[in-house]
Protein backbone atom coordinates (compact mmCIF):
# COMPACT_ATOMS: atom_id res chain seq x y z
CA UNK A 1 0.00 0.00 0.00
CA UNK A 2 2.74 2.43 0.95
CA UNK A 3 5.00 1.29 -1.86
CA UNK A 4 3.68 3.51 -4.66
CA UNK A 5 4.66 6.90 -3.29
CA UNK A 6 5.63 6.75 0.39
CA UNK A 7 6.47 10.42 0.63
CA UNK A 8 3.08 11.46 -0.73
CA UNK A 9 1.38 9.02 1.62
CA UNK A 10 3.29 10.56 4.52
CA UNK A 11 2.34 14.09 3.46
CA UNK A 12 -1.34 13.13 3.28
CA UNK A 13 -1.23 11.48 6.70
CA UNK A 14 0.51 14.44 8.32
CA UNK A 15 -1.82 16.91 6.67
CA UNK A 16 -4.87 15.07 7.99
CA UNK A 17 -3.27 15.09 11.43
CA UNK A 18 -2.60 18.83 11.25
CA UNK A 19 -6.23 19.43 10.32
CA UNK A 20 -7.31 17.43 13.38
CA UNK A 21 -4.84 19.36 15.54
CA UNK A 22 -6.29 22.63 14.20
CA UNK A 23 -9.74 21.52 15.40
CA UNK A 24 -8.22 20.74 18.80
CA UNK A 25 -6.69 24.21 18.91
CA UNK A 26 -10.08 25.75 18.18
CA UNK A 27 -11.69 23.59 20.91
CA UNK A 28 -9.26 24.94 23.50
CA UNK A 29 -9.38 28.32 21.74
CA UNK A 30 -12.92 28.81 23.03
CA UNK A 31 -11.59 28.35 26.57
CA UNK A 32 -8.72 30.76 25.92
CA UNK A 33 -11.32 33.27 24.72
CA UNK A 34 -13.20 32.88 28.02
CA UNK A 35 -9.94 33.42 29.92
CA UNK A 36 -9.24 36.58 27.94
CA UNK A 37 -12.75 37.98 28.49
CA UNK A 38 -12.67 37.22 32.24
CA UNK A 39 -9.30 38.89 32.60
CA UNK A 40 -10.36 42.00 30.68
CA UNK A 41 -13.59 42.34 32.66
CA UNK A 42 -12.35 41.45 36.17
CA UNK A 43 -8.55 41.91 36.31
CA UNK A 44 -8.28 42.20 40.15
CA UNK A 45 -10.60 39.31 41.03
CA UNK A 46 -9.00 36.99 38.47
CA UNK A 47 -5.48 37.81 39.71
CA UNK A 48 -6.60 37.16 43.32
CA UNK A 49 -8.16 33.81 42.34
CA UNK A 50 -5.07 32.83 40.34
CA UNK A 51 -2.79 33.59 43.31
CA UNK A 52 -4.61 30.93 45.36
CA UNK A 53 -3.62 28.16 42.89
CA UNK A 54 -0.52 26.02 43.55
CA UNK A 55 1.76 27.43 40.88
CA UNK A 56 4.66 25.25 42.06
CA UNK A 57 2.66 22.09 41.30
CA UNK A 58 1.72 23.56 37.92
CA UNK A 59 5.40 24.26 37.20
CA UNK A 60 6.37 20.71 38.22
CA UNK A 61 3.70 19.37 35.88
CA UNK A 62 5.05 21.61 33.10
CA UNK A 63 8.50 20.05 33.62
CA UNK A 64 6.95 16.56 33.35
CA UNK A 65 5.18 17.39 30.07
CA UNK A 66 8.17 19.19 28.51
CA UNK A 67 10.37 16.20 29.38
CA UNK A 68 7.79 13.80 27.93
CA UNK A 69 7.88 15.79 24.69
CA UNK A 70 11.66 15.32 24.59
CA UNK A 71 11.12 11.56 25.08
CA UNK A 72 8.62 11.46 22.19
CA UNK A 73 10.94 13.46 19.93
CA UNK A 74 13.73 10.97 20.73
CA UNK A 75 11.34 8.08 19.99
CA UNK A 76 10.46 9.56 16.57
CA UNK A 77 14.17 9.99 15.78
CA UNK A 78 14.82 6.37 16.79
CA UNK A 79 11.85 5.13 14.76
CA UNK A 80 13.15 6.84 11.63
CA UNK A 81 16.49 5.08 12.11
CA UNK A 82 14.67 1.76 12.55
CA UNK A 83 15.75 1.36 16.17
CA UNK A 84 13.03 -0.64 17.91
CA UNK A 85 14.42 -0.52 21.46
CA UNK A 86 15.03 3.23 21.38
CA UNK A 87 11.55 3.88 20.01
CA UNK A 88 9.85 1.72 22.66
CA UNK A 89 11.93 3.28 25.45
CA UNK A 90 11.07 6.83 24.35
CA UNK A 91 7.36 6.09 24.01
CA UNK A 92 7.17 4.32 27.39
CA UNK A 93 9.12 7.11 29.11
CA UNK A 94 6.69 9.67 27.69
CA UNK A 95 3.67 7.60 28.75
CA UNK A 96 5.14 7.25 32.26
CA UNK A 97 5.72 11.00 32.52
CA UNK A 98 2.13 11.53 31.34
CA UNK A 99 0.91 9.26 34.14
CA UNK A 100 3.03 11.28 36.57
CA UNK A 101 1.34 14.45 35.30
CA UNK A 102 -2.10 12.93 35.89
CA UNK A 103 -1.18 11.73 39.40
CA UNK A 104 0.11 15.17 40.37
CA UNK A 105 -2.97 16.82 38.85
CA UNK A 106 -5.26 14.51 40.86
CA UNK A 107 -3.36 15.29 44.08
CA UNK A 108 -3.69 19.00 43.28
CA UNK A 109 -7.46 18.68 42.74
CA UNK A 110 -7.63 16.95 46.13
CA UNK A 111 -5.84 19.86 47.82
CA UNK A 112 -8.14 22.34 46.08
CA UNK A 113 -11.23 20.46 47.22
CA UNK A 114 -9.98 20.66 50.84
CA UNK A 115 -9.22 24.36 50.39
CA UNK A 116 -12.72 24.95 49.00
CA UNK A 117 -11.41 26.18 45.65
CA UNK A 118 -12.73 23.60 43.22
CA UNK A 119 -16.23 24.15 41.75
CA UNK A 120 -18.60 21.17 41.87
CA UNK A 121 -17.08 20.30 45.27
CA UNK A 122 -17.44 23.76 46.83
CA UNK A 123 -20.58 25.78 47.66
CA UNK A 124 -20.92 28.98 45.64
CA UNK A 125 -20.76 31.13 48.82
CA UNK A 126 -17.25 29.86 49.59
CA UNK A 127 -15.70 31.71 46.64
CA UNK A 128 -14.15 35.15 47.23
CA UNK A 129 -16.24 36.76 44.48
CA UNK A 130 -18.56 35.75 41.62
CA UNK A 131 -15.69 36.47 39.21
CA UNK A 132 -13.39 34.18 41.22
CA UNK A 133 -16.06 31.48 40.96
CA UNK A 134 -16.20 31.96 37.16
CA UNK A 135 -12.42 31.80 36.94
CA UNK A 136 -12.34 28.56 38.93
CA UNK A 137 -15.08 27.13 36.68
CA UNK A 138 -12.80 27.89 33.74
CA UNK A 139 -9.85 26.37 35.61
CA UNK A 140 -11.74 23.13 36.25
CA UNK A 141 -13.14 22.79 32.71
CA UNK A 142 -9.85 23.66 31.00
CA UNK A 143 -7.60 21.45 33.16
CA UNK A 144 -10.09 18.55 33.12
CA UNK A 145 -10.41 18.71 29.32
CA UNK A 146 -6.63 18.82 29.09
CA UNK A 147 -6.32 15.85 31.49
CA UNK A 148 -8.68 13.87 29.22
CA UNK A 149 -6.32 14.62 26.34
CA UNK A 150 -3.30 13.51 28.41
CA UNK A 151 -5.14 10.26 29.27
CA UNK A 152 -5.87 9.57 25.59
CA UNK A 153 -2.25 10.41 24.77
CA UNK A 154 -0.88 8.00 27.40
CA UNK A 155 -3.07 5.22 25.96
CA UNK A 156 -1.89 6.01 22.41
CA UNK A 157 1.79 6.10 23.44
CA UNK A 158 1.54 2.83 25.39
CA UNK A 159 -0.39 1.09 22.61
CA UNK A 160 2.13 2.25 20.04
CA UNK A 161 5.04 1.07 22.20
CA UNK A 162 3.39 -2.34 22.45
CA UNK A 163 2.86 -2.63 18.69
CA UNK A 164 6.42 -1.53 17.90
CA UNK A 165 7.75 -3.96 20.50
CA UNK A 166 5.68 -6.83 19.01
CA UNK A 167 6.92 -5.81 15.52
CA UNK A 168 3.32 -5.54 14.30
CA UNK A 169 4.47 -2.07 13.24
CA UNK A 170 7.66 -2.56 11.25
CA UNK A 171 10.21 0.22 11.54
CA UNK A 172 11.35 2.35 9.86
CA UNK A 173 8.44 1.97 7.40
CA UNK A 174 5.85 2.63 10.11
CA UNK A 175 7.75 5.64 11.46
CA UNK A 176 4.98 7.95 10.20
CA UNK A 177 2.61 6.32 12.71
CA UNK A 178 5.00 7.17 15.53
CA UNK A 179 5.34 10.68 14.13
CA UNK A 180 1.55 11.24 14.07
CA UNK A 181 1.06 10.15 17.69
CA UNK A 182 4.06 12.33 18.52
CA UNK A 183 2.38 15.36 16.92
CA UNK A 184 -0.71 14.79 19.07
CA UNK A 185 1.39 14.52 22.23
CA UNK A 186 3.37 17.68 21.41
CA UNK A 187 0.14 19.61 20.86
CA UNK A 188 -1.20 18.48 24.25
CA UNK A 189 2.08 19.81 25.66
CA UNK A 190 1.76 23.14 23.78
CA UNK A 191 -1.80 23.59 25.12
CA UNK A 192 -0.51 23.12 28.66
CA UNK A 193 2.32 25.60 27.96
CA UNK A 194 -0.40 28.24 27.43
CA UNK A 195 -2.82 27.01 30.12
CA UNK A 196 -0.12 27.21 32.81
CA UNK A 197 0.51 31.00 32.74
CA UNK A 198 -3.10 31.81 31.80
CA UNK A 199 -4.46 29.97 34.86
CA UNK A 200 -1.67 29.90 37.45
CA UNK A 201 0.35 33.06 36.83
CA UNK A 202 -2.21 35.89 36.55
CA UNK A 203 -0.80 38.77 38.60
Amino acid at each position, binding site marked *: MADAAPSRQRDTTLMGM*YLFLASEIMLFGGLFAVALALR*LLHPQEVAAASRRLHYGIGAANTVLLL*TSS*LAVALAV*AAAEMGKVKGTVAGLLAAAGLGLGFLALKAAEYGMEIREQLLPAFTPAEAFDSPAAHLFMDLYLVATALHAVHVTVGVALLAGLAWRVHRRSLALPRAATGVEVVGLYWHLVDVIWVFLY*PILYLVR
Partner: protein
Amino acid sequence: MKVVAPLIAVWAALLALLGMTVGASLVLTGTPSLVASLGIASAKAALIAWVYMQLRREGGLMRIMALGAAFWLLILLGYLALDYLTR
Protein backbone atom coordinates in the same frame (compact mmCIF):
# COMPACT_ATOMS: atom_id res chain seq x y z
CA MET B 1 24.26 12.17 18.19
CA LYS B 2 23.71 14.67 15.39
CA VAL B 3 19.96 14.13 15.71
CA VAL B 4 19.81 13.93 19.50
CA ALA B 5 21.82 17.01 20.51
CA PRO B 6 19.36 19.66 19.18
CA LEU B 7 16.45 17.82 20.83
CA ILE B 8 18.16 18.02 24.22
CA ALA B 9 19.20 21.64 23.65
CA VAL B 10 15.55 22.55 22.97
CA TRP B 11 14.48 20.76 26.17
CA ALA B 12 17.02 22.80 28.17
CA ALA B 13 15.77 26.00 26.51
CA LEU B 14 12.15 25.07 27.33
CA LEU B 15 13.01 24.56 31.00
CA ALA B 16 14.88 27.89 31.06
CA LEU B 17 11.81 29.60 29.56
CA LEU B 18 9.62 27.97 32.22
CA GLY B 19 11.93 29.42 34.87
CA MET B 20 11.67 32.83 33.21
CA THR B 21 7.86 32.80 33.16
CA VAL B 22 7.68 31.84 36.86
CA GLY B 23 10.28 34.51 37.66
CA ALA B 24 8.38 37.14 35.67
CA SER B 25 5.16 36.32 37.56
CA LEU B 26 6.93 37.15 40.83
CA VAL B 27 7.94 40.67 39.75
CA LEU B 28 5.42 41.82 37.10
CA THR B 29 1.71 42.60 37.42
CA GLY B 30 -1.09 43.69 35.10
CA THR B 31 -0.49 44.14 31.37
CA PRO B 32 3.33 43.69 31.50
CA SER B 33 2.75 40.37 33.28
CA LEU B 34 0.26 39.25 30.61
CA VAL B 35 2.58 40.28 27.78
CA ALA B 36 5.57 38.50 29.36
CA SER B 37 3.70 35.26 30.09
CA LEU B 38 2.10 35.06 26.64
CA GLY B 39 5.36 36.04 24.93
CA ILE B 40 7.31 33.31 26.76
CA ALA B 41 4.55 30.74 26.13
CA SER B 42 4.63 31.61 22.41
CA ALA B 43 8.41 31.16 22.35
CA LYS B 44 8.03 27.73 23.97
CA ALA B 45 5.28 26.75 21.52
CA ALA B 46 7.44 27.90 18.59
CA LEU B 47 10.38 25.78 19.79
CA ILE B 48 8.16 22.72 20.19
CA ALA B 49 6.51 23.24 16.78
CA TRP B 50 9.75 24.00 14.93
CA VAL B 51 12.01 21.28 16.38
CA TYR B 52 9.88 18.63 18.13
CA MET B 53 6.99 18.71 15.63
CA GLN B 54 9.68 18.98 12.94
CA LEU B 55 8.18 21.87 10.99
CA ARG B 56 11.78 22.90 10.28
CA ARG B 57 12.11 20.00 7.83
CA GLU B 58 8.61 20.15 6.33
CA GLY B 59 7.62 21.96 3.15
CA GLY B 60 5.55 25.11 2.87
CA LEU B 61 2.20 23.30 2.74
CA MET B 62 2.63 21.68 6.16
CA ARG B 63 3.88 24.91 7.71
CA ILE B 64 0.83 26.78 6.41
CA MET B 65 -1.44 24.06 7.84
CA ALA B 66 0.21 24.45 11.24
CA LEU B 67 0.22 28.24 11.17
CA GLY B 68 -3.37 28.30 9.89
CA ALA B 69 -4.73 27.10 13.23
CA ALA B 70 -2.79 29.77 15.10
CA PHE B 71 -4.07 32.37 12.64
CA TRP B 72 -7.74 31.36 13.12
CA LEU B 73 -7.24 31.48 16.88
CA LEU B 74 -5.80 35.00 16.62
CA ILE B 75 -8.87 36.10 14.63
CA LEU B 76 -11.15 34.68 17.35
CA LEU B 77 -9.21 36.26 20.22
CA GLY B 78 -8.55 39.49 18.32
CA TYR B 79 -12.20 40.28 17.61
CA LEU B 80 -13.16 39.29 21.15
CA ALA B 81 -10.57 41.65 22.64
CA LEU B 82 -11.70 44.39 20.24
CA ASP B 83 -15.22 44.08 21.63
CA TYR B 84 -14.23 44.22 25.31
CA LEU B 85 -11.53 46.86 24.91
CA THR B 86 -13.72 49.35 23.03
CA ARG B 87 -16.78 49.35 25.27
